[in-house]
């Protein structure tokens, strides 16, 4: 199975993408979508990405909701800061120690950090033990680290065990 369908989530993603693109459910379109969903991940697999087992779906959905909410919230927060006087902002870097070892997990975490306004993941240490994060307004480094670990890293550890 792994040989012909290396990554089910990827196949699914391709299929969904295809359906969204063609925006019809005609037989040839769906058939082609299925074919692509099989073939394209095979191509991608030739690049031999690091594999990961995929954990619990409900956690994923919950994490998604949290992230979306955080995005909205921090968007507003950052917009306020930008429009306000600049001296109110005190930016800074913070090293987030990582518990999660899986590269997919790390990637997801870093992406979430970047997508959430106010924080940008700037660098992953070579041993993948620390993520360097730049905060737009860094008042409480420990607090930021703790929030990240609790809100995002913990569920991600469940998703990518």
């Amino acid at each position, binding site marked *: 199975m792994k040989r012909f369908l290396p990554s089910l989530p990827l196949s699914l993603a391709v299929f969904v993408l295809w359906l969204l693109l063609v925006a019809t459910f005609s037989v040839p379109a769906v058939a082609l979508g299925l074919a692509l969903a099989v073939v394209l991940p095979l191509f991608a697999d030739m690049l031999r990405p690091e594999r990961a087992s995929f954990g619990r779906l409900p956690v994923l959905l919950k994490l998604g909701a949290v992230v979306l909410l955080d995005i909205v919230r921090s*968007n507003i927060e950052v*917009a306020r800061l*930008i429009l306000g006087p600049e001296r109110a902002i005190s*930016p800074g870097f913070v090293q987030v*120690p990582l518990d999660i070892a899986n590269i997919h997990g790390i990637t997801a975490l870093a992406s979430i950090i970047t997508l959430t*306004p106010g924080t940008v993941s700037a660098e992953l240490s070579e041993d*993948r033990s620390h993520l360097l994060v730049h905060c737009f307004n860094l008042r409480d480094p420990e607090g930021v680290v703790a929030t990240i670990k609790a809100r995002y890293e913990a569920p991600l550890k469940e998703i990518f065990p």
Partner: protein
Amino acid sequence: MSAAFEILMVALLAIGAFFVLVGSLGLVKLSDFFKRLHGPTKASTLGVGCVMIASIGHHATLGDGLGLRELLITGFLFITAPISAHLMAKAALSLAEDDPRPSPPPRPDQAQPREDDGPGR
């Protein structure tokens, strides 16, 4: 089309345009690269996102019927924005005169080097 829908659409457009503008405004106004780096993330998330939803609604009512293709744009932005932000940050770090990075706190539990090399090599 209901007035409520219309108001919702206008609001979405307003919010979207606002965040896009704020992002670019930050880019101009802020004094330091790392501060500015936070600008476009607004634009690419909430800014574009709101416009996208408005567009879905618009085409669903006026145009070719319901299509969720616009979601793909946000989807792709969610994949690509972190990559570019990450690399820009790394680029800026590599140019920084004195390293602004705080040293990582010691982590006794992960002292030994990892075995797998990762795809980056």
